[in-house]
């Protein structure tokens, strides 16, 4: 029996975040199936197992522990939940299993010297926040035009919502815009007072740093209070169909960050043709193919498969690689435009090149806008914010973590 590359997926498909979970993990599994249909990675098929976490850290840890030893040992894990990710953070280095945190989690984990087994791939919150400000600056006609402007940071009052604060505060000082921070108590099903405050403040822009049901409520409440949706810019967890569809027309004109350009790509076509046409697709509702979460899942799948490929190049083609080797693969990822073209996803996600210093690998994002029916990219190019600034913050923060945990920062081989 040929060796299989086994990946642990502590997923969630019930509860408040089920919509996001089912789309994301659906995308991952669709891509795995696609790869396996064409014979796997150099003949090594990918296998995986899911486990329901309900987005709950305690259950997530149990899932991780249960999944990690199966099928000869997991070689990668992705919980898509900050709480769960934190719960297993300490265990990864001991178990020698790398974890990706695609688009979430602690931004300073991009420092591979301190977090060798953690990969906040594509882009972290800090770089996103920096990119947001850059975009808003561009919109005003130059970053210097932000001076004297008012930007509201309307955020989910949790670790997630507070994560970008250091970056936004630093940038506000640097560029002279006023930053008004307005928290929303999770789950955020009532935001009348926040939006009245916003209306009162008359900001030029509102950054919506929300998650789950908070987003739709924010957009609806903005509408109720007559606040123009064009002035709202969402984080990428506030930029999916799940966030806009329930608001009806209220979201028209609302824009959000993304690291997946909406549109059609060969790889998505193949998924449609080879999987869904045969009833082998993972999504229960075929209309969600190509939705934001689904594409995000496919992107994750692409990066992982490329990491496997890279590791096989080094450690032996056609062989099952270990968790440590996988870690190497993730750390030496180079998914450039050519590679993306080859897998039929050019333009769908930015190119990613990682190193020991930079487990993030990109930091580039786009802005998309909701036209009432679907998302459309409104920035032709990938936007990158003030990376020097985020780098500085990252070094400080990860150094503090290393000190607290008594880790000597060093690159792994």
């Amino acid at each position, binding site marked *: 029996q040929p060796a299989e590359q086994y990946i642990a997926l502590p*997923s*969630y*498909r*019930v509860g408040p975040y*089920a919509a996001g979970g*089912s789309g994301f*993990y659906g995308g991952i599994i669709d891509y795995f199936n696609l790869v396996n249909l064409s014979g796997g990675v150099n003949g090594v098929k990918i296998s995986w*197992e*899911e*486990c*329901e976490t309900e987005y*709950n*850290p*305690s*259950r997530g*840890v*149990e*899932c*991780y*522990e*249960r999944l*990690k*030893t199966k099928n000869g040992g997991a070689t990668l894990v992705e919980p898509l939940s*900050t*709480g769960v990710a*934190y*719960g297993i*953070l*300490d*265990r990864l280095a001991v178990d020698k299993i790398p974890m990706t945190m695609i688009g979430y989690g*602690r931004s300073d984990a991009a420092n591979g010297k301190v977090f060798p087994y953690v990969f906040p791939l594509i882009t972290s919150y800090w770089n996103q926040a920096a990119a947001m400000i850059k975009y808003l600056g561009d919109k005003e006609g130059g970053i210097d035009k932000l001076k004297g402007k008012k930007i509201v940071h309307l955020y989910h*009052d*949790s*670790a*997630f919502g*507070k*994560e970008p*604060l*250091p970056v936004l505060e630093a940038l506000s000082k640097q560029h002279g815009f006023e930053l008004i921070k307005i928290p929303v*108590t*999770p789950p955020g099903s009532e935001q009348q007072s926040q939006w009245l405050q916003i209306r009162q403040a008359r900001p030029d822009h509102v950054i919506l740093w929300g998650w789950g049901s908070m987003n739709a409520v924010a957009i609806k409440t903005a509408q109720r209070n007559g606040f123009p949706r064009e002035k709202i810019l969402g984080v990428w967890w506030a930029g999916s169909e799940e966030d806009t569809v329930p608001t009806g027309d209220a979201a028209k004109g609302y824009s959000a960050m993304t690291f997946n350009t909406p549109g059609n790509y060969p790889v998505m076509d193949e998924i449609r043709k080879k999987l869904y046409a045969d009833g082998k697709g993972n999504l*229960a509702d075929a209309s969600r193919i190509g939705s934001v979460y689904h594409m995000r899942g496919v992107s994750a799948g692409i990066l992982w498969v490329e990491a496997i490929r890279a590791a096989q190049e080094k450690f032996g083609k056609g062989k099952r690689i270990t968790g440590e080797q996988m870690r190497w693969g993730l750390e030496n990822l180079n998914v450039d435009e050519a590679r993306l073209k080859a897998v039929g996803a050019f333009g769908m996600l930015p190119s990613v090149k990682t190193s020991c210093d930079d487990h993030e690998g990109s930091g580039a994002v786009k802005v998309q806008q909701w036209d009432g029916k679907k998302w459309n990219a409104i920035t032709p190019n990938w936007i990158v914010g003030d990376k020097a600034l985020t780098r500085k913050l990252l070094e400080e*923060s990860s150094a*503090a*973590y290393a000190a*607290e*945990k*008594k880790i000597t920062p060093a690159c792994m081989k």
Partner: protein
Amino acid sequence: MLYREAGQFKTSYQADGQIFPILQDRLALLALLVIAIVVVPLVASPYALSAILIPFLIFSLAALGLNILTGYAGQLSLGTAAFMAVGAFASYNFILRIPGLPVLLAFVLGGLSAALVGIAFGLPSLRIRGFYLAAATLATQFFVVWCLTKIPYLTNYSSSGVITAQPIVILGYAFDTPDRKYLLVLAVVAVMALLAKNMIRSNVGRSWMAVRDMDVAAEVIGFRLMRTKLLAFAVSSFYCGVAGALYAYAYLGTVEPEAYNLDLSFRILFMIIIGGVGSVLGSFLGAAFIVLLPVLLNVVAHSLALPTSVASNLELMVFGALIIFFLIVEPHGLARLWQIGKEKLRLWPFPH
């Protein structure tokens, strides 16, 4: 006829006041302890230890804490997770700010901090009762988590409000592997369960139960309501605080305040209701039910090869249905079921 106390006469009140007056029970407990201390660490897989047994024990401790308050003293509370959070974050800060502080002492200090918070939030219980009190304790839940997210000092100015538990080292011995952590948690839980049982069988315990069963009468008999209730809040919060610290240090490692959300409070409440309100054993049985059943259902659902989303939803439904089923079979929880089982065993082979 195996399980009988016939022939076991107690010759002193001391013997009669024992926790397990029946010899068979004592032997069974001894066997259980030997298994838990010696056999389990040897044979159990790291998975079983670190993903099942450790959380099971920690939740049992939290459930025990809540059971002291709700089950014994009759004060329904939905703020358990908040007290756990206080315990965890206080322990973290004590270790951080007092160099060389022994970890166990930090846990105790964390528990004491939780106890203080418990006393403060227990004050309304002097006037408010039942579901009104339960809903009012939600104030604790939300307020404490809010404080932890808003006061940067408490999270050592970490930008996102996340803390990372320091490694557990006691007398130079590092508790870093699953089996060591397990033994540490087991020791803490066992000692605290014993202390709880002692309290319950002596005057404090009786004062709690009296206040629970009929507070006016308790007062007439000479229990001071304020002291009794506040003591229950303090002890309960202490237990929850220690459990919370263990949850952070021996289980999750890195935690955000959100890990101690309302959901967790509810889960612990479920544990004591399913296990048995007012029963030490019930706290353990309930924790086992709530921790293990979803895992079991998850495993079963997976082996059926159902589509994952179907499986996950079915799990939820079966879980809910089983809760209802057990309540119908025995409204007083698993501990009562166990006791009835024992009574039947005592009568066996006669039906009555």
